[in-house]
């Protein structure tokens, strides 16, 4: 990765003995959409605040556009648009006035400001409602206005903290495709934090999973699932018309293929886990044996699975490390033995 636009090196923030962010190193290159994923309280917001220079890191360095954020926050904030998770607007001003105020704080010239504000409102789809008071805005509209707030400054980097929080599903889809489009059109770098995984999956080029202040993995979706699920990264689901499961003969034939790792049979549904994509072979085999296939589906691991996997291991570690109740420990050991 050449010339990363955001560069975090050993970033650490402790509150007393608790570490909110623990030795985080991350590089994000220009024009990329990066998703920072993690459960609530994982330290996502703290990391973002440190990038903005709003919170002083205990150790480490956050460099944005080559500028150290904690020693020169103003220079960083000129290039970086930040949309916090819970946006507030001045309720007694209209949306346009709110936007123009932000424009003035960014030293946009007065004669240019009004046209720019109108244009930005059109881009985020609030052209009709720009003269309404923000107190009359719905949550989704406020989110759009928040994006307008960021865009009017024409930043190089946009940081969105939980941008999908509290918007309905269709709104989320629209919002994310808007971000994607803007990023591609204007070459913006976008950093997105979220705990909604499948939404982020749709738009991000790369994601990093962040749990308990540490970045567990980073990479694009494919690498991530390969790393995590290793051998069984392809799972085929084949359903048959006949309710009776296929006889042992076919299973034996399947097991003879050495890429197949596991086969589970549930009534008329067969699930085949394998290390390579052998969908045509499996289908051909079943067809040759005269079975009526009604559907073949290749199961892909979404972030949800990835996330659960990580979360599970994390929780297990917690339980084995901590002094939790006997019941938990017993069930944990039982599972281990089985």
């Amino acid at each position, binding site marked *: 990765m050449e010339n990363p636009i955001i560069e975090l090196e050993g970033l650490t923030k402790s509150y007393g003995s608790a570490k909110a962010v623990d030795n985080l190193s991350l590089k994000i290159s220009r024009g990329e959409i990066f998703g920072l994923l993690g459960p609530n309280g994982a330290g996502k*917001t703290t990391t973002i*605040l440190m990038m*903005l220079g*709003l*919170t002083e890191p205990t150790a480490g360095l956050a460099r944005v556009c080559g500028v150290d954020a904690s020693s020169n926050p*103003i*220079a960083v*904030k*000129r290039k970086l*648009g*930040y*949309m*916090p*998770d*819970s*946006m*507030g*607007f*001045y*309720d*007694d001003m209209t949306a346009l006035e709110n936007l123009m*105020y*932000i424009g*003035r*704080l*960014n*030293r*946009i*010239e*007065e*004669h240019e400001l009004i046209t720019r504000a109108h244009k930005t409102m059109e881009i985020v789809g609030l052209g009709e409602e720009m003269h309404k008071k923000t107190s009359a805005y719905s949550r989704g509209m406020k989110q759009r206005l*928040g994006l307008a*707030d960021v865009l009017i400054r024409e930043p190089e980097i946009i940081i969105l903290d939980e941008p999908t929080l509290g918007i309905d599903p269709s709104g989320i889809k629209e919002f994310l495709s808007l971000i994607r489009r803007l990023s591609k059109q204007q070459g913006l770098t976008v950093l997105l934090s979220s705990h909604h995984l499948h939404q982020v999956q749709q738009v991000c080029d790369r994601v990093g999973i962040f749990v308990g202040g540490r970045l567990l993995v980073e990479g694009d979706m494919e690498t991530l699932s390969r790393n995590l699920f290793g051998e069984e990264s392809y799972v085929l689901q084949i359903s048959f018309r006949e309710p009776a499961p296929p006889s042992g003969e076919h299973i034996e034939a399947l097991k003879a293929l050495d890429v197949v790792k596991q086969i589970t049979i549930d009534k008329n549904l067969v699930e085949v886990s394998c290390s390579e994509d052998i969908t045509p072979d499996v289908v051909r085999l079943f067809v040759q044996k005269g079975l009526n296939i009604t559907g073949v589906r290749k199961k892909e691991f979404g972030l949800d699975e990835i996330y659960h996997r990580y979360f599970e291991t994390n929780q297990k570690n917690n339980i084995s490390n901590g002094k939790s109740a006997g019941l938990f420990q017993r069930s944990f050991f039982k599972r281990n033995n089985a």
Partner: protein
Amino acid sequence: MESPLVYFKGLFSKGIMHKGLEQQKAESPFRAMTRKEAGDHVRSWRFIVMLILIALTFLGALYVSLSNISAATANINDPDRLFVYLKLLTTSDGTLPTFHVFISFLGPLLGIALGFDAINSEQNNGTLTRLMAQPIYRDNVLLTKFCGALIVVSVLFLCLVLLMIGGGMMITGVLVEPGELLRILGFVAMSILYVGFWLSLAILLSVRFRNAATSALAAIGIWLFFTVFYRIIVNLIMSAVLPSSGPLPPEDLLSYNNLLLFLLRLAPSQLYTDAATTLLMPSVRSLGPLTMEQMAGAIPSPLPLKESLMIVWPQVTGLLAATTVCFALAYYLFMRREIRT
């Protein structure tokens, strides 16, 4: 919220927009923020209520003094009788207190009303995070809150006093003298400083307390303490300290009196009243007790402006120091604060 003062907005912004077009230069964030703060105050109901209250007390005090002005200016024994406009501000027949007495207890309320939710309401609405994400200095947020409110207060006091002078000219037909005008402007500056102290105290509390109601209550608590209870406490202390037996020698009496004055002057309202009285009544020569030796040979005549200013200088310094301390504390707390909602 639509309010009757909306037209101020156009009035303020017209000039600035015009200027911006002329110079083709962007306005500094500090000015934009101060303008917004001042505009917000002018349009808020809270300020309108305070404005009405202060304007009413001003008119009341003025009415009482106007109806007694001829008697006051004709009083041969009064060395200040020639200062018609100062007399307008200080004459009363006892039915209503004079204007500066009103301000000594309404001023704090004005300062508190303009400042008690300066920071915490922004924080609770989530606008502070939004503001902090902009390329502005953090201390500018605090400073613009203070400046915006102080500008509004200054304009209010100046308007009232200038209206009084204009009205006085029309009614009495006496021209205002430069010295008199300077004294009145000094009084206005003193009043602004006094409100500024309470404003910075209220802003300090708004940084300290997350809840606007808590900070308002704390500010009003401090105000009540100084207006009502402080005097009682000082009296209690003095009666405990004073020996009960017999008449006191003059030296002791003097030292006790000085102690009493010292304690009273810890209250900001006392500082303000002292300063206002001295500025508005040129014949006041000292704020403490005077001995017979000091009084001997003194002619009961008005002091020149410079001498009056010398007398109130400690008061001005005290109020300025208190304001600065409050503001510095607010600054200290706010700069270290982590901005989150």
